[in-house]
């Protein structure tokens, strides 16, 4: 069994989660057992998995595991039907769609919050004392059961979290006390787990214990560390194989080339605990070569982190496109969206009908505001759309209707969005940065590579694609042709080679 180790399946996932999710899906569809192990407590996990298109059987969350709730079907629990409220004594008064008050003789004794995006399903109940202090908060899982209880300190800060099994028994508690005068979680205590208690000082110690419990007795276990901040945990897992999957460049300043210092977070695998890993996967041959030269003790293999489904390929065959330039990914400085705006301004002058779509969540609300201000100053509000984070289906629709994908990031391990784009027959215009662009784009064939930071060149390439339909069709066909390499069977063969090589 392959185990991908992640923090969480988030509501807004990054490429790392998408990669692990895709790979797990790919493996399971092709008869290779794979699961994702996640660490964070997430009572909306079932919903987030659904949005991310993950089958719940392929994820084991640590808290769910100890709570015995990994395999619980959803049972919608409307707040007005929750049996815990004695409605012959208390009133429930709806304040708005998001929460209601529980009232006793007119006094607010509890705040009942609604699960986001639902009508009246219970999400949490916070009880108040007669001085109006919060005393206890009960947290409900998306699947409709009481999952945890929070107790507060006198000043309202979180005190103790108690996690429950379906019978309501406490199985795990987190205590929040002071470390050097600062309130922090200080203890994770597993209660009566297989008849014993276990105390941990840090969540990752519990996480290690959890992974060991899951992979115990699996002689085929391959534990894949997907996130660099979890490498130190995976390093100590008792399993036949531990590998690290590098989703981005290990270089601190990729523009300096291989001589750049490495990112500190890569220290664990590359320097401190190399011996504990049977190997590392990277996404491109170039990154592998660089690593081989600098870290000869690490067994590095190339493996793709994404595949394109046949359904996507079929959808991508449509040649009916809108004059839309798609930018997919997080709106953050390392992806240089201000460069995108500069490029689009030039394109828009040549092609007034052109639109720019950003699909992805911003690094911060402030950053989004800055981008919007720029758009406003350029008088491009009608042509630039910020779509936010899109679920799988909506994102696929964008890929299938846009004309070109633009990439201006500082560097790319491979560039999942560029792989996805070619699967949908979308030409890609990208800065020529490390590592992915030159692997995925054959300049002038399925897109254009322009020198890093050259907005004018990028604008010119895009303008050509939007105005020269022959050129676009040619690149569209080439993209689809190249995407054959990204099909499941090809990717899986590739991956198996990598695993074999790292043994």
């Amino acid at each position, binding site marked *: 069994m392959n185990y991908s180790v992640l923090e969480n399946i988030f509501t807004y996932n990054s490429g790392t989660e998408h990669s692990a999710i895709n790979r797990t899906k790919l493996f399971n569809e092709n008869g290779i057992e794979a699961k994702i192990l996640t660490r964070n407590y997430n009572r909306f996990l079932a919903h987030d998995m659904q949005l991310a298109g993950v089958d719940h059987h392929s994820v084991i969350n640590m808290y769910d595991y100890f709570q015995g709730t990994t395999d619980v079907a959803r049972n919608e629990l409307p707040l007005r039907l929750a*049996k*815990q*409220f*004695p409605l012959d*004594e208390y009133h429930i008064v709806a304040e708005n769609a998001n929460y209601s008050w529980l009232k*006793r003789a007119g006094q607010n*004794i*509890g705040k009942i919050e609604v699960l986001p995006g639902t009508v009246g399903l219970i999400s949490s109940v916070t*009880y*108040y*004392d*007669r*001085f109006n*202090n919060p*005393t*206890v908060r009960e947290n409900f899982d998306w699947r409709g059961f009481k999952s945890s*209880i929070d*107790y*507060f*300190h*006198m*000043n309202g800060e979180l*005190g*103790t979290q*108690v996690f429950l099994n379906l019978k*309501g*028994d*406490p199985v795990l508690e987190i*205590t929040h*006390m*002071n*470390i050097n005068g600062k*309130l922090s979680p*200080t*203890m994770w*205590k*597993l*209660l*009566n787990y297989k008849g*014993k*208690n*276990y*105390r941990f*000082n840090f969540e990752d110690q519990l996480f290690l214990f959890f992974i060991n419990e899951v992979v115990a007795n699996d002689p085929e276990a391959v534990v894949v560390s997907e996130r660099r901040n979890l490498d130190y945990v995976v390093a100590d897992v008792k399993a036949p194989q531990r590998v690290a999957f590098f989703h981005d460049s290990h270089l601190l300043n990729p523009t300096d080339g291989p001589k750049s210092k490495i990112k500190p977070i890569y220290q664990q695998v590359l320097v401190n605990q190399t011996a504990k890993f049977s190997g590392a996967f990277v996404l491109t041959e170039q990154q592998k070569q660089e690593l081989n030269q600098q870290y000869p003790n690490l067994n590095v293999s190339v493996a793709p982190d994404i595949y394109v489904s046949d359904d996507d390929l079929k959808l991508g065959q449509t040649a009916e496109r809108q004059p839309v330039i798609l930018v997919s990914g997080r709106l953050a400085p390392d992806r240089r969206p201000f460069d995108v705006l500069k490029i689009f301004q030039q394109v828009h002058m040549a092609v007034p009908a052109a639109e720019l779509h950003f699909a992805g969540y911003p690094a911060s609300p402030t950053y989004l505001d800055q981008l919007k201000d720029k758009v406003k100053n350029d008088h491009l509000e009608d042509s630039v759309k910020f779509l936010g984070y899109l679920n799988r289906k909506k994102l696929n629709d964008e890929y299938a209707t846009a004309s070109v994908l633009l990439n201006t990031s500082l560097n790319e391990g491979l560039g999942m969005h560029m792989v996805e784009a070619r699967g949908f027959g979308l030409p890609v215009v990208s800065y020529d940065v490390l590592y992915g662009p030159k692997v995925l784009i054959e300049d002038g064939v399925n897109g254009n590579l322009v020198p890093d930071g050259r907005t004018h060149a990028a604008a010119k390439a895009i303008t050509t694609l939007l105005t020269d339909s022959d050129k676009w069709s040619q690149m569209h066909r080439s993209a689809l042709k190249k995407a054959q390499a990204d099909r499941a069977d090809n990717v899986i063969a590739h991956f198996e080679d990598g695993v074999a090589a790292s043994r």
Partner: protein
Amino acid sequence: MIFFINATMQKQKSGIEHAELKRFELFNAHHVDSRFLIRDWDPALHDNTKLAGIPDENLIGMFDYFQQATHVKPKRITIDDLDFGVLNIHADPDLPNNRSLVKTAQGQLVARVNYREDHETVRSVELFDGFNNLYRVDNYDTRGFISLSQMYTPDNKVGTEVWQTPTGHVVLETFNRADAQGKVQKSGWRLTDADGTIRVFDTIEELTAHFFNLMNEKFWSVKQPNIFILDRSHLGDWGLLQLKKPAYTVMHLHNSHAGDAQEPMHSILNNNYEFAMNALDSYDAVVSATHKQTHDVEARFHPIAKLFTIPVGVVSQELLDGPRVPVKDRQYGKVVAFARIAWEKHLDDLVRAVGIVHKEVPEVSLDLYGYADASDNYRARRAVEKAIKEYDLDGVVTMKGYTTEIDKVENQAMMFGLTSRMEGFNLAVLEAISHGLISFSYDVNYGPNEIVEDGVNGNVVPFNDYKAMAAAMLKVLKDPKLAQKYSTGAYDSSERYSPANVWNAWQSLIDDANQIWPTKLAAAHMSAQEGVKQ
């Protein structure tokens, strides 16, 4: 069901507990089922009720009830049963503090394990996290489970306190929070009932009222009412007025209702009973232990609530039928008193009376049986010692301490003295007359001046008049015939407190409850015929 409501059943019982236990015995003898409702949390409750002879079947502690722990098979928890979840630990004994310190191999403190008197059974465990914070104290019930866990705040105060079932389910929480003035106090309670319903309460009084309702529901019957007898007013004088369904509620006076018992008509009310006396007609009945108090309550309040006089002491049939010790076989001049040496008992006056007697009859002596009350630096004992010195009574007056050998002492002594400032009943003087002791008492409300009948079984002398008491004693000491007459009168007068007589008094209360029950049901839109939830 008939409920006796009390705070707990401590090892050192006061008159109220003794009264309840006598009543329990009487009810059992007449096959009338009853339950002790114990309101306060007490981790040693079942040890003490066992000693007091109360079986678990007749006991419902409020906390026990919520904790689903009314019937738990006791098991002893020692340090070996504890699981700290930490590897490589050892326990260092700390004998002076009757505890062990549990530490890691590196010497970091994991827990302090505090023991009970046997130095082995775990009483409580103070738990520390990996960063040396005391984060919780687990308190064990003597039956061997964690009953109350107190969560600590980073500044080392008790924050939230939670009670759990023997299987570790949290069912009740209370919170300590700062009020608007910044003073930390209990700010609320949160209860999860057995059916999963969650209720919050501002105070323990509200929680108690809910408990009374649950009890009324649990033992509900249209055939007869539940009878709630409130033996400590503060536990339910308000709460019993919150019953949702009808019941028969009884305010039991165990002390003077008036702050100055000698001024029963006009003095400011005894604070313990102020609320109940003002809400008197909200109860169905008021029980006093003496006719005199019943009379005074009637005279002052003219209540609609029924008044019953039911002695809180019972003289056993065995004692009533037992052999009588003639005065000539008793130690001439031996006076005894059974009372705590406390301010309200005013025993220095008794010493003075004996001191006066001693001048004429040197054979007189006084033995004081009872603990010395420590309040105000043993003020009462110091007063007694001063009086002994004043009358030069060294070797005549002896402070004997507490004894359980009442029969032995009272079958040898001749007289009993009582000089209290106030009384609720006084079981000691009842014991005295039932043993044929000639009693001398101040005319003090309530109990002494009814149990002691002047000229029948001794003398009642004016309040605070120890000289008159001395004169009465001298008269008896000088007149053997009179002495025998009073002693015989004492034995005879204890018949008033025979099991049959006291039971008859209770029976009349139960009869009243049953008689008005159909009316109560009808007033609550219920009837004995209709199918009301059983």
